[in-house]
């Protein structure tokens, strides 16, 4: 995870970073080059997520140079790496759209549909960017964050995005950064669970839909097949991700990670392994081990591996489970799994279900070995 800057003009109410943290600092190309070099030497494959702040506060020339550096260390059009950028879309102009398209960069736009003004600002600019992406036939997803005010509106939001042919990814606010200061934004878990189950059921039988519903679609694949390793939001991912800040500081996660889990600075290390041998990493590992011990008997432990450590840290403390994120995942995932199990057992008329469900079930029936856990 690369945070090229913490600066962002949209100042969302639930931002991981407090206003005083969002300085003008920008990551230097020297630091970027070093992280690419170390990763290329130590890992066979890697995925880079450009996050922030707002990553597109940096100019086009920065990204051209950054991608040249990636090519230098991983090779041109290398299959060893991939890129995702998470943006508010305000600065997403045609030049960026063409560049990301030609470099196969996944684009995620933070946009909450008709309720965008509840948490965010500059809605018109974001909607312009979405229209521009659609006009260029560029692929993208929308990250839709739900507050307590919008937690029960998931069906309405799904219909809104489906009609625009946009794939939405719903996620609840977690009490970190600004949301930790204003906990009224954090959704009531029960309200969120009820609406999340409703939206899954709506999508399940929506035979006309052409968009996957996230994260439910991932839950579904997880429930009938191999766990999706990349779904870091709902699993324990320590040691597989590293986040670099503009000043070169390294953390195990990009979700506004507490200072005590600092892994060092890119300027002071000679290998990525050095970061994972730091006291900060040992601290977060130790806390997670204690929490996962408590999770071991849970029936869905094999799917979440103890859940996100930073979510737990912010909700109930690193060593404890049963926070809001844990309860939401457990309830929604169990519902999805029960539905999928009953489809596999009862073998109903599949024409009732959407094409994503039909494909997944067909894949499972054709070759159970591939998807079996």
């Amino acid at each position, binding site marked *: 995870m690369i945070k090229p800057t913490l600066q962002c003009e949209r100042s969302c109410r639930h931002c991981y970073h407090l206003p005083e943290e969002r300085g003008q600092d920008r990551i230097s190309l020297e630091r970027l080059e070093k992280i690419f070099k170390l990763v290329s030497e130590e890992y066979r*494959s890697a995925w880079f997520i450009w996050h922030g702040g707002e990553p597109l506060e940096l100019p086009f020339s920065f990204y051209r140079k950054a991608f040249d550096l990636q090519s230098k260390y991983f090779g041109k059009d290398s299959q060893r790496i991939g890129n995702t950028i998470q943006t508010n879309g305000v600065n997403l102009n045609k030049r960026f759209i063409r560049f990301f398209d030609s470099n196969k960069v996944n684009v995620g736009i933070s946009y909450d549909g008709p309720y965008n003004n509840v948490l965010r600002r500059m809605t018109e600019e974001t909607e312009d960017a979405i229209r521009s992406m659609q006009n260029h036939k560029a692929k993208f997803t929308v990250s839709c964050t739900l507050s307590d005010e919008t937690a029960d509106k998931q069906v309405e939001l799904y219909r809104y995005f489906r009609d625009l042919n946009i794939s939405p990814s719903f996620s609840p606010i977690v009490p970190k950064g600004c949301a930790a200061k204003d906990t009224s934004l954090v959704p009531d878990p029960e309200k969120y669970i009820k609406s999340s189950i409703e939206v899954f059921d709506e999508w399940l039988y929506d035979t006309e839909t052409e968009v996957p519903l996230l994260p439910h679609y991932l839950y579904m694949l997880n429930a009938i097949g191999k766990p999706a390793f990349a779904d870091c939001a709902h699993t324990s991912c320590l040691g597989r991700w590293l986040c670099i800040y503009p000043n070169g500081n390294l953390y195990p996660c990009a979700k506004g990670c507490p200072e005590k889990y600092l892994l060092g600075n890119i300027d002071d290390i000679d290998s990525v392994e050095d970061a994972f041998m730091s006291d900060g*990493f040992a601290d977060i590992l130790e806390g997670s081990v204690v929490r996962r011990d408590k999770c071991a008997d849970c029936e869905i432990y094999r799917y979440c591996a*103890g859940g996100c450590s930073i979510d737990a840290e912010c909700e109930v403390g690193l060593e404890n489970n049963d926070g809001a994120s844990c309860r939401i995942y457990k309830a929604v995932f169990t519902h999805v799994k029960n539905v999928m199990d009953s489809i596999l057992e009862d073998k109903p008329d599949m024409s009732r279900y959407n094409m994503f469900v039909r494909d997944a079930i067909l894949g499972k029936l054709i070759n159970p070995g591939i998807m079996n856990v």
Partner: protein
Amino acid sequence: MSCASKADKKTAAKTEVELESDVVEETVKDNRVLMTNKVYTRQMPDVLPENYNEAEDERSLHGNRKCYDCCTDEHGCCSPGCTICLVGVAAVCCLLCCYTTDGFNGIWTYWPN
């Protein structure tokens, strides 16, 4: 002079002790991380493979392992090595085919006319 050398020796001895304690401290720290990491890895549900990179490779090859040694991470099964092998095999097949079917006007044909 002797005072100075005594002080030097004292400093040298101190530095040595400091270095030694640094090494011990470093080892203890490394052990702490390694031990915790071991427990953490052991806690991973048994569905997760031990070698994550291997699983990634399999997934990037659509569930298949690499076909041959000449397949590479960068090019998969379209590496120059694979292409050369493929062209070579095709050429040998052509030659054998010509040989057995009188393709060289019977000059090298072993097959009785």
